């Protein structure tokens, strides 16, 4: 029984919100960079850039998948545990007798299988959520809990230490001086951004998050799209797991990816992708992650204890989401 006109024209205020959302994080990043150039000793060096990018790359890789999931209005809490699984599987493969006898094949499989397995678990998440119409928080909570357990069971909680330069290239290697994982990170960001802009799948993701009913009525296969984004999130987590164990030359299923889901969610939130879905900016997520990383670095470099950075991180996330909501009419 609609009496009043329902479409409120909020052109002006919404533009401010979108502008803010899009550029606030970038502006903050620029400001912070400027501050650091001015104040922090030895900031303007390749070393610093390297350190920061390396630390942030893993988070961004996971966050790309997370951005897509959030764009559909969902969330994925299992990414850290999936990282643990893939990080556990890889050494198991190339350290096995098979892997030792056929190193080339072993290494190849050590890349492919863990990522694929993580992707399959992600697909499970998507299936579980759509088949039983469960809230994504709860649905992915299952894999969060069970996933790390699976990783621990596979390795019996033991540390796997290794030295495998070929495999570890993904975490330690460089291409033209740029760390490999940074290249992967940039490639994924570019691919995801392109996909959201220019592919059918990307459009479907955004429509599902934007107005699921309208998407369904327009023929978009909503359940399939959702299953796929969770699978992709799993794949990203799988890749990130490989990177982490490569950097550490060891794989501890108890620790790999611990807390990663929250880091990823924070990056997405700060980067400006709304949790209600329908809009996504992968580049924003990258900036968000960089910003959070830079804040942490700035504090550390200037003598503030790491723990304080946690508090600041919490405040940034809350502030980012709150400011995002200010412009929204809903």
């Amino acid at each position, binding site marked *: *029984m609609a009496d009043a006109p329902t479409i409120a024209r909020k052109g002006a205020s919404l533009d401010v919100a979108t502008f803010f959302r899009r550029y606030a994080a970038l502006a903050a990043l620029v400001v912070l960079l400027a501050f650091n150039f001015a104040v922090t000793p030895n900031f303007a060096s390749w070393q610093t850039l390297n350190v920061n990018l390396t630390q942030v790359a893993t988070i961004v890789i996971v966050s790309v998948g997370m951005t897509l999931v959030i764009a559909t209005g969902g969330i994925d809490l299992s990414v850290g545990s999936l990282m643990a699984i893939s990080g556990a599987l890889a050494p198991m493969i190339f350290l096995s007798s098979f892997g030792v006898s056929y190193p080339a094949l072993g290494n190849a499989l050590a890349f492919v299988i863990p990522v694929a397995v993580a992707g399959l678990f992600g697909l499970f998440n998507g299936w579980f959520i759509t088949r039983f119409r469960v809230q994504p928080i709860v649905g992915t909570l299952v894999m969060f809990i069970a996933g790390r357990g699976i990783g621990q069971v596979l390795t019996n909680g033991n540390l796997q230490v290794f030295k495998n330069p070929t495999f570890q290239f993904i975490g330690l290697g460089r291409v033209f001086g740029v760390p490999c994982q940074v290249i992967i990170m940039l490639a994924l960001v570019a691919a995801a951004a392109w996909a959201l802009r220019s592919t059918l799948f990307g459009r479907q993701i955004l*429509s599902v998050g934007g107005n699921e009913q309208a998407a369904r*009525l*327009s023929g978009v296969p909503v359940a399939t799209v959702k299953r796929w984004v969770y699978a992709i999130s799993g794949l990203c987590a799988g890749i990130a797991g490989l990177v982490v164990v490569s950097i550490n030359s060891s794989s501890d299923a108890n620790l790999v990816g611990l807390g990663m889901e929250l880091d990823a969610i924070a990056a997405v939130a700060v980067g400006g992708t709304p949790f209600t879905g329908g809009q996504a900016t992968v580049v924003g997520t990258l900036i968000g992650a960089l910003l959070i990383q830079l804040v942490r670095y700035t504090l550390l470099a200037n003598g503030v204890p790491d723990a304080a950075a946690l508090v600041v991180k919490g405040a940034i996330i809350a502030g980012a989401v709150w400011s995002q909501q200010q412009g929204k009419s809903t």
Partner: protein
Amino acid sequence: MTDSLLAMHDINKRFQGVQALSAASLEVEPAEIMALIGQNGAGKSTMIKVLTGAYRRDSGSIVFAGRPIDFGSPQAAQRGGVSTIYQEINLVPFRSVAENIFLGREYRRYGLLDWGRMNAEAAELLRRFAVEIDVRRPLMEFSTAIQQMVAIARAVSFKAQLVIMDEPTSSLDEREVAVLFDVMRRLRGEGVAVIFVSHRLDELYKVCDRVTVMRDGRTVSTHRMADIDKLRLVSAMLGRDLETVRARSTGFTAPKSTPGKVVLSAEGLRIGRKVRDARVEVREHQIVGLAGLLGSGRTEVARAIFGADPPDAGKIEIDGRAVSPQEPAEAIALRVGYCSEDRKADGIVPDMSVRENITLGVLPRLTRLGVVDEARQREIVDRFMQRLAIKASGPEQKIRELSGGNQQKVLLARWLCTDPELLILDEPTRGIDVGAKAEIQALIRELADQGLGVLMISSELEEITEGADRVFVLSDGRTVADLPHAEASAKAIISAMAHEGTAAGEGAADG
């Protein structure tokens, strides 16, 4: 003359440029059941919200129980003696019946909640309405009718003198409606007045004393139920003078081609409680109108055909083949399109651009290897933006910034892109200004002339009488009339809607 219990006079209310109420009025005597009727947008719910304080009126006076009042919120109204029962049961389903009745003003003993007393009083309250249930069980275990009784009991326990019931019967079956009416009569017997808002005219005749008709934000007339028959009631609601011959007032021109083969044939449709036996048929080159009062089941029929809410029973044939689409995607593959009734709820994707909204349905066909063909997309968007004269700053503008009329055009474009054989339009010109209306209407005729089969649901009588080549009328979920254009006069349609059962044009046997 007894003093009225409620006297609302000269109420004005304006929303963002739309005058929702113009000098509207409403008077209710103590211990009477007053029906309040009107079509969509007539102002009924605005009037009620102004009374209960959900909205502030711009001007006008409200006198209740002899005193001028100005309630600031529905809670204040409740304390003041005016309670509202909403269409969606605004109670908490998981909580017990007794708890729902006393939520917010629980009884206490030694600081702890006194369940014993609350349960006893709740049971007593319901017994007054001849409802005997276990008040300790969760509300949701009971049927909607009982839940409604509980809502009424809660309202009454606040010592209400006036109870407003907003479409309380929409999800009740006949037996439950009878029980509800009993309760209403009891209330009346106890001196409580009731305002009963409903679209089901038959019901009003069973239980109401008087009726107030609203239209376009004004109060049109007030009658004793006994003094006015259904036909005149419907006419008053629609503002339709039965005998007047009207000059053409829509953008619909006469058809330029004759109907071709049957693209849609649906019969025996049964959907939930709303649709009991619906029938409809559409041919190529033809606009078929689906008329009926609010709540008669038209949208449900449309959604069933489109696969959005598959029916419980019935046969649907598209292009002569029996089909039963379970998902809209299946219907789309069968070259059916559906432009929904509520743009905001399930039509537009608000954060997307005009271009993205237009191409949403047809995108799979514009992609190669998963990548969208930008050139083809641009071409199609430009073509349709031009054809439908969509006013926007460009294809990239966010659709939520467009006017209602242009948004509707975008949605139409979305479906036209898919090159359908059958297009179902649910209230295609609702909430659109006059100019855009005529444009869209002319466009629909043009599309039909070119071969499209159109099933058009509309609450505006002129659209049906002028635009439809054939009219099916739904009443209470049944197809009660099948009229060719020549026989589809306003009077005939209204008669059918009011289900006076006129013989003329009932078309093929039983509906």
